[in-house]
């Protein structure tokens, strides 16, 4: 089953012609309408008309999250605000959010791409789709919502949280497809079990999970606990949100919607392309976005492009499930967290030493983050009350900045490990990432290695 078979199963040569046409039109438009790109291209002595093949893309400069921040909020928009019908912002990083916009056409494109994701994951117009992503600035909920409506499925926008109510809705409304983060799906599964509800009492058939990395082991656990077939889908707000790539029911990698996104994988150090099959950082260029086109955006996500055809018939190349990050970003409870954000707050607060460690665990389904902070002598041997006040103060500031609650523990001075080289500030005990092809099953979070 396909949503747009003429696109999803397109002949490779036709696809490459279409990609080139769309790339050239996009480059002409960003050059005309986004001063940031024009300046960059001019500085490198590149004109859009120099790009005459898909491989010429490598002559263009990369765009990074810092560029988005520097141009906060609307600096990279390619259309005036009166043409923007929707604005989203990247999840969590409230200190330095990245803002993206959509025209009416962008919303239509997005809806169609997400409809492809849903159909590839087994959903049809006859399904009842419960969306348990948080509705808000985050693209996940609205992306899936519009895609499911476009498909013609019945959408139940429960948003996230209140798990007992989620389960009641799921049973009473006979939900057949669940959309949320994998960790929330696991929590729902655990809660179903705790409530003594047999899996057979649920009508669920499919689960479509994304917005955070998850392992095959977690997939198995969720499938068992909810009696579903679970598929992974990938996207990021800077590019469009969900709808960039997704698994089909073969579940042998995520099909990239290549008629809308041009992908490369590069070595994060040298920024040179890596051969297909090798792990590299995913770099994406949008081909059809009107309001917020992106040229060679460095996603920081590590993956590899897979060779060979998929038995499902889709011709879009596949990427492996995510294998890590090329920066130190953590995804905690679906929210992007950078250690540097935590560090900045600790620096603000008097009485703490600039030594800290972030420990992330998964208790059951939910992520738990603890920040160990060395206290300065002055307060540590003082009274308990002052310690408690300080802990509360840091926790409050972290919650404000990060958008999630984090536990803070004060430790004695000089008890945290010191580093001579690169500091290892993060201990991530979750096993989130897929293994590179050919590697063993154990995987390490890149920021903890």
């Amino acid at each position, binding site marked *: 089953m396909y949503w747009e078979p003429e696109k999803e199963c397109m002949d490779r040569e036709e696809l490459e*012609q279409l990609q080139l*046409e769309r790339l050239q*039109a996009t480059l002409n438009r960003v050059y005309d309408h986004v001063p940031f790109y024009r300046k960059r291209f001019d500085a490198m002595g590149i004109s859009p008309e120099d790009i005459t093949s898909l491989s010429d893309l490598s002559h263009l400069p990369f765009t990074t999250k810092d560029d988005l921040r520097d141009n906060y909020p609307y600096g990279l928009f390619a259309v005036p605000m009166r043409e923007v019908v929707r604005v989203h912002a990247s999840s969590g990083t409230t200190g330095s959010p990245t803002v993206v916009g959509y025209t009416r056409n962008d919303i239509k494109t997005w809806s169609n791409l997400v409809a492809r994701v849903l159909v590839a994951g087994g959903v049809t117009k006859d399904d009842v789709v419960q969306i348990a992503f948080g509705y808000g600035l985050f693209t996940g909920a609205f992306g899936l919502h519009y895609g499911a409506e476009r498909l013609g499925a019945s959408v139940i926008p429960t948003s996230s949280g209140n798990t007992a109510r989620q389960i009641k809705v799921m049973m009473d409304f006979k939900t057949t497809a669940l959309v949320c983060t994998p960790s929330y799906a696991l929590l729902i599964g655990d809660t179903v079990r705790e409530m003594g509800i047999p899996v057979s009492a649920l009508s669920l058939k499919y689960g479509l999970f994304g917005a955070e990395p998850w392992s095959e082991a977690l997939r198995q656990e969720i499938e068992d606990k909810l009696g579903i077939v679970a598929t992974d889908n990938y996207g990021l707000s800077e590019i469009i949100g969900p709808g960039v790539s997704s698994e089909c029911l073969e579940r042998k990698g995520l099909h990239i919607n290549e008629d809308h996104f041009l992908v490369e994988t590069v070595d994060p150090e040298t920024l040179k392309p890596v051969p297909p099959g090798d792990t590299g950082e995913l770099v994406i260029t949008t081909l059809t976005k009107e309001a917020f086109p992106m040229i060679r955006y460095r996603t920081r996500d590590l993956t590899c492009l897979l060779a060979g055809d998929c038995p499902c018939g889709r011709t879009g190349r596949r990427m492996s499930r995510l294998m890590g990050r090329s920066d130190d970003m953590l995804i905690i409870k679906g929210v992007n967290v950078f250690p540097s954000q935590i560090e900045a707050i600790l620096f603000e607060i008097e009485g703490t030493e600039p030594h800290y460690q972030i420990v992330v665990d998964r208790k059951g389904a939910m992520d738990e983050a603890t920040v160990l902070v060395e206290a300065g002598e002055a307060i540590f041997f003082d009274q308990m009350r002052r310690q408690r006040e300080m802990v509360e103060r840091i926790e409050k500031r972290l919650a404000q900045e990060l958008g999630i609650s984090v536990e803070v523990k004060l430790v004695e001075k000089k008890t945290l490990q010191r580093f001579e080289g690169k500091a290892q500030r993060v201990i991530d005990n979750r096993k989130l990432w897929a293994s590179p092809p050919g590697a063993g099953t154990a995987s390490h979070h890149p920021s903890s290695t």
Partner: protein
Amino acid sequence: MLRAKNLHVHYGVIHALRAVSIHVNEREIVALLGGNGSGKTTLLSAISGVVRPSAGEIVFGGKDITRERVDHLVRLGIIHVPEGRQIFGPLTVEDNLLLGAYQRFSLRDNAAIYKEVEEVYRLFPVLGQRCRQLGGTLSGGEQQMLAIGRALLSRPKVLLLDEPSMGLAPRIVHEIFEHIARLRRERGMTILLVEQNARAALAIADRGYVLETGRVVLQGSSEELLANKDVQRAYLGRARGAAS
């Protein structure tokens, strides 16, 4: 079916096309939109061999035709209906039509060709009624039909139409576009259409490209282009701009 990649055209010092890439699939109607001097006509002329691209390639049915002679291109079925119709005024309607078959006219094949002329009369009854009249005495709309009819006599595989609505009253424009849509519907014709009248063109086209100063700045389905604010502002007028 037809594919152009990175076409550049220079007229002396003027760089009229800059790395233009487009494609037309079989049985598709594709519209080329854009203002005066945007390069639409140049693109059509480069495909039909009337002007020579300075760089780039054109592939038709898997064959590189970039440097092909115009008469060979006509034989391959790439038929250009030029802007301003270019009817031979002193010739009769029928002689104008027969000129479309100039490459294959022979006494032996006459019968087949006259059958095709009859077919054009069925398609455009007004041409049949005026078959003995001189081309120059026809109205603008009739001349446009004659120009398309003449092209059909060349047995087109792809029809390149340049500004078929030019200088015609709105009612006649509607009629001409209805005929163009029928050519695809009933005869499976593949059509690349240059038009100033973006609304009329997008009403019958599947897809379109918007050219600006010799470059493609937008491409997409007709529906997407109609919903695009730049297209609305520049080519559709404000009338329906707000009600996208």
